[in-house]
């Protein structure tokens, strides 16, 4: 247990750049951009006292301030929408995660073989399965948790900036938004999706770790090239077979196998290709709780477990290779 704690810390030392700085920089850029727009708008008065004017034939017949339009009821509703959906603002940060995690997994069991520092790690009393497990936990649990933390904080900050913007128009939403329980539950809902993410991402992580611990060089080429070339070959065979009226169902294999191997690290991959239906958008946008429910529901699909089992098998392969690969 203690060993695992230190191994995770070790991963963190080495990959702080990818897992912390990259999403943090994305977050800072987003916040600064929004703050700049809001700050400019508020200070130049472009956002204040905006009124809605209705003219008929050039004659003004009605004029009202935003503040008057927003009734008490609609304010609660706006706050509700905001508290339920603000986390979606963090989406760009969730795009950083699969990219970083993909390259992390590829490098995880390869880099220390390339620079031979594996001989240092292997001189310590750490089993190869513990080492590989620490990389797995880093990619599948630690990295998503850090991303969720940063994305939630970013979304919250931007929500507050939006609050400043609308309050400049005389609509103060801080009270109803901050007292809305969904504001605080949203990050928790995201964290509760991690187990689902782990299961769906296992085949990709397993594949990448396997290549990472097997390839003597050019890990990226092996990891991406092999599935892609396989996909092309399958397509071609399918085309040839079609001349004789047969098929190997290449599209099905490509969708289910190749995508599972390469795209599993994308958050919400289980919604791709309509595999699991995204909950219908309600009046107040998509409710995160129903997304959470649908995500857990995706585990009823057998593909989830077949993929996870394949992932585990590839991880076992990676451990075995790590144990016996002769580094010369």
């Amino acid at each position, binding site marked *: 247990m*203690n*060993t695992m*704690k*230190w*191994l995770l*810390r*070790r991963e963190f*030392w*080495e990959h702080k750049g990818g897992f912390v700085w990259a999403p943090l920089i994305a977050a800072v850029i987003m916040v600064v951009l929004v703050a700049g727009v809001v700050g400019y708008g508020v200070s130049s008065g472009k956002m204040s006292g905006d009124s809605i004017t209705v003219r008929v034939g050039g004659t003004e017949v009605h004029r009202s301030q935003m503040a008057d339009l927003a009734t008490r009821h609609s304010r609660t509703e706006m706050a509700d929408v905001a508290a339920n959906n603000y986390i979606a603002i963090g989406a760009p940060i969730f795009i950083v995660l699969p990219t970083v995690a993909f390259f992390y997994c590829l490098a995880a069991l390869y880099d*220390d073989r390339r*620079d*031979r*520092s594996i*001989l*240092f790690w*292997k*001189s*310590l*009393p*750490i*089993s190869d399965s513990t080492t590989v497990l620490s990389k797995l936990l880093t990619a599948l649990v630690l990295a998503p948790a850090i991303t969720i933390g940063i994305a939630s904080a970013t979304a919250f900050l931007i929500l507050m900036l939006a609050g400043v913007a609308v309050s400049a128009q005389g609509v103060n939403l801080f009270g109803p938004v901050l007292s809305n329980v969904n504001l605080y539950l949203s990050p928790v809902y995201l964290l509760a999706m991690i187990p689902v993410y782990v299961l769906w991402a296992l085949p990709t992580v397993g594949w990448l770790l396997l290549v990472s611990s097997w390839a003597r060089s050019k890990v990226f080429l092996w990891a991406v090239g092999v599935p892609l070339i396989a996909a092309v070959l399958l397509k071609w065979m399918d085309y040839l077979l079609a001349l004789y009226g047969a098929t190997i169902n290449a599209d099905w294999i490509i969708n289910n196998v190749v995508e599972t191997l390469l795209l599993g690290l994308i958050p919400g991959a289980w919604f791709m290709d309509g595999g699991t239906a995204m909950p219908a958008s309600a009046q107040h946008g998509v409710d995160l709780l129903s997304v959470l429910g649908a995500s857990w529901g995706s585990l009823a699909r057998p593909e989830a477990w077949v993929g996870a089992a394949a992932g585990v098998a590839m991880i076992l392969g990676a451990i075995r290779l790590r*144990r*016996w690969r*002769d*580094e010369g």
Partner: protein
Amino acid sequence: MSAVISARNLTKKYGKQTAIDGIDFEIPAGRIVGLIGPNGSGKTTTLKAALGLIPFEGELRVMGLDPRTQRDALMQDVCFIADVAILPRWLKVRDAVDFVAGIHPRFDRSRAERYIANTRLKPEMKVKQMSKGMIVQLHLALVMAIDAKLLVLDEPTLGLDILYRKQFYQNLLEDYFDENKTIVITTHQVEEVEHILTDLMFIRDGKIVLAASMDEVGERYVEVMVPADKVNAANALQPIDQRTVFGKSVMLFDGVSRAQLSALGETRNPSVADLFVATMKGTYA
């Protein structure tokens, strides 16, 4: 426990190439053994087998354990420095000490820190900012603070300057080695280790050609400066090696009594390097 490492018919093949050819040897506890051989003779392969880094055939026990199946238990008591300068480039001195302290039950933190304090290493320094010599100092600080029963050093000082090399072996001998520990060293720089070795093992083409304690080596091998008029008499005793220095023949004898040889000329103990060269004659021919 008698032997720290014992090998019976240890064999390792890479495809058709035989790296280790059915060797037998025993290394008792409390020794400093020099495993010496030319490039490609199988010394690193032997050590890798003992450290459980590669599969092999035959029988090999390291502290009673099979390195193939019991590596995790074995590494509690064994430590090694394989090759120079292999610490990860991003590692900080402070983190390295913390990490090993965190995972190694036999690590003595204060010892490592004391050793580091005597170098120019700073806690915030990263490996990529260090010279090769400094990396080895850090590695040695970590390893010396581990109370391992067996320490394996594979070319630990290759490419270091003489100051670092001398200091390395001095630290090892003065601050680390005691009768409960065993050290196995492979190196090309025979001259620098010969005074610290207790045992010698020469390996050639995957076979052990000499395994003896330094005392036995001293008794068995004698070098004689033979003047020109006694060369024929000396040749009759079948020297294993012969070279000429300042017009005099220097001959190396194996197992000829010292009394008999002193009649031929001035006798002395050969250096390990001379012995090595004589034993390995024709390796690269």
